[in-house]
């Protein structure tokens, strides 16, 4: 699905003006947006987008659709509450925030590695089933375990630190924090796709047997991919618990697990920008669908909107955008599409198994 990024030397300084525009917009966003739009729309989209990015990375580059990415993020969120401070009076070991953050992210990455170790020997639908099973098991476990995870109630009162004179849950600082982390992982995934490891992973995706024949350890490659995805999802999980100020089993429930899949699919799995587009669409609909229609039917609107996107653009919003773009700038774009067809749409044996 992903190929090597096309060279962009056509643009001055090698930067696409659209990218520059997007960057300026994202940085200036809190200056003109209200607190609500900065925090609940902006920052929340970036967090969900980052979690979905970890799925896009696994699915897009590695051909492994893992439904347990929300579980990994949720585990990091739980570790923040258990190791740090909370207001519930269960656990809350009171570790300093920086240590809690590091351990929470590493813990999430380890859980992801563990999930990978179980799932990496499977392919296609079986990976989906195993990771879904793990996600559901984790949900029921945290809901019924009271000694460590405080059951149905979960934890509340988890706060980010006050640093450099800023309280990091205030809308604007929190937005920039989420933006910085999202941008970092976005670039890391883009860059990583061109690294030796990224190329190896894509080779594993396209033809694991051939890669194995070359002497590369397919299993290990996949597990390492799960580890990286765990770092991404875990970091987003830390942001999520700061965003909500609380964590309870609902956050790792099947609904949320499916939401992440919806975000990734609707956004488009062809490029790392896809999950962020999907997250923005998702968060906007989640917040404003209720204003569009009969208050008791707004979930139908959300469902229909996503159905339409997937129906008319199988590769998500990203594909929709590319199609519009190609209509507007026909000559150049069609030439580019031609290049892509030559490069990326070659399906080796076994590729039908991947998503």
């Amino acid at each position, binding site marked *: 699905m992903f190929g090597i990024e096309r060279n962009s030397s056509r643009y001055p300084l090698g930067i696409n003006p659209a990218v520059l525009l997007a960057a300026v917009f994202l940085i200036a966003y809190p200056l003109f947006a*209200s*607190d*609500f*739009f900065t*925090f*609940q729309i902006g920052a*929340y989209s970036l967090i969900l987008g980052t979690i979905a990015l970890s799925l896009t990375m696994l699915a897009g580059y590695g051909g492994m659709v893992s439904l347990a990415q929300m579980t990994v993020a949720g585990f990091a969120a739980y570790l923040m509450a258990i190791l740090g401070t909370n207001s519930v009076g269960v656990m809350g070991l009171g570790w300093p925030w920086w240590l809690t953050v590091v351990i929470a992210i590493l813990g999430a990455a380890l859980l992801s590695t563990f999930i990978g170790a179980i799932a990496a020997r499977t392919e296609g639908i079986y990976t989906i089933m195993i990771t879904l099973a793990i996600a559901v098991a984790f949900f029921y476990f945290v*809901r*019924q375990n*009271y000694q460590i995870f405080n*059951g*149905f*109630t*979960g934890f*509340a*009162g988890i706060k980010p630190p006050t640093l450099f004179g800023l309280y990091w849950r205030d809308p604007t600082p929190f937005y920039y924090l989420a933006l910085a982390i999202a941008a970092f992982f976005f670039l890391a995934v883009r860059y990583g796709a061109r690294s030796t490891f990224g190329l190896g992973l894509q080779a594993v995706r396209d033809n694991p047997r051939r890669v194995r024949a070359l002497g590369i350890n397919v299993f290990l490659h996949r597990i390492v991919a799960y580890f990286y995805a765990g770092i991404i999802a875990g970091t987003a999980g830390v942001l999520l618990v700061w965003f*909500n*100020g*609380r964590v*309870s089993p*609902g*956050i790792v429930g099947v*609904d949320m697990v499916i939401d992440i899949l919806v975000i990734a699919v609707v956004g488009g799995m062809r490029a790392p920008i896809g999950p962020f587009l999907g997250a923005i669409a998702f968060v906007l609909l*989640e*917040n404003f669908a*209720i204003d569009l229609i*009969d*208050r*008791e039917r*707004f*979930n139908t609107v959300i469902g229909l909107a996503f159905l339409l996107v997937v129906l008319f653009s199988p590769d998500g919003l990203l594909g929709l955008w590319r199609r519009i773009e190609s209509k507007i700038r026909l000559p150049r774009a069609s030439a580019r599409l031609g290049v892509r067809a030559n490069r990326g749409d070659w399906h080796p044996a076994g590729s039908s198994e991947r998503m």
Partner: protein
Amino acid sequence: MLKCAGKTLLAAAVLAVASPAVAQDTIKMGGLATLEGAFAAPGQDGIRGIRMALEEFNHTAGGKKIELITGSSDASPASAIRATRKLVEQDGVQIMIGPLSGSEGLAVKDYAKTKPNVTFINGTSAAQDTTLRKPAPNFFRFSTEGAQWMAGLGEYAYKVKKYRKVAVLAEDYSFPYTQVFGFLEPFCRLGGKASVNARFWVPIGNKDYSSVIAALPDDVDAIYVALGGADAINFLSQYQQAGGELPLIGGSITVDQTVLGSKGKIRKTVIGTPSAGPISDTWDDPRWKAFVAQYKKMFAGKGGFPSPSLFAHGYYINTKAALLALNQVKGDLSDGGKKLRAALSSLKFESPTGMVSLDPRRNAIADMFLTEVVEGPDGNLVNKTIGVTKQVSQTFGVKYEEFLKYGPVSRTNPPCK
């Protein structure tokens, strides 16, 4: 049903345009209920309660038109916060009514502390610590809470029913903890026993109660059951099927209309079950009868229950309090609602279930009903009113500092050995 709301709003808008002197201004009110997920049916009844109050006041209070903006959660605290934040920060509501469920209320109270200029009034969330410990100065609860709802039941079970030892079966979260506390505290003070080992906590949505039924001890006089909605129906029908013989004692939403009106085979098990709560279906009082008649007039055949549930009642009372206070301050919220909150704090009014006023932590003091399930004249199961406990406070008349020593509600409080 909502089209109808649209029409009335439209009509009100037309009226406002036709006579500009009536309303120059509008006040935005947010209504938050669980319109999705497991509690969707109670959530819709909550919104019905808000609409009944607005209708009663002709959508006007303090000379200003009230614009209702609805929000929805799925009973999880995080979704309640997101919906509240949208209503407050995006839609700009100055008065919030909601939420519905216990843990949501705890979360919204914490959020309220960050928005001192917005007035938050509860829906039906009934966890104890929403107002008892670390209350928010701008969060009001005119609908009372789960322990208050149990007023009189512990004494009734011990003195009249002569139960000495009970087992407990309840869902595993803050609201049932509060209810179990409210029942056991007086029951055990009188000398009743409820061993911690004979308390069974099940997750919300549990479907198979066979293992719980098998584990119920034989040497108890009754089982106290605090389950809601589908959970209650599942347990009651499975218990009847299993040939369970022990008498039951019900929580406030265990044997209410949403359960009694169901098709499950529960008749034999539930008849004669005592319970307690903020409402009683058959209370013979003109105020309650007028309320039921109004509910039926507005919602019969449009999705409403045969009789208003405690959710419609709770949201109605809280909305009515907001409107009464708005009338008192003549709709003036220019001071960030300071005057409104002062008016709310000292508000005292007649509700369909008697006089309501607030304690210093802004939790309601109100009358509670002791009921028992009987077969009505038309064969339907209804809750017959046995007694009314007048003016129950959150601390049951105990001094606040003394009451705190009872400790927060939990699976093991009170220990009752």
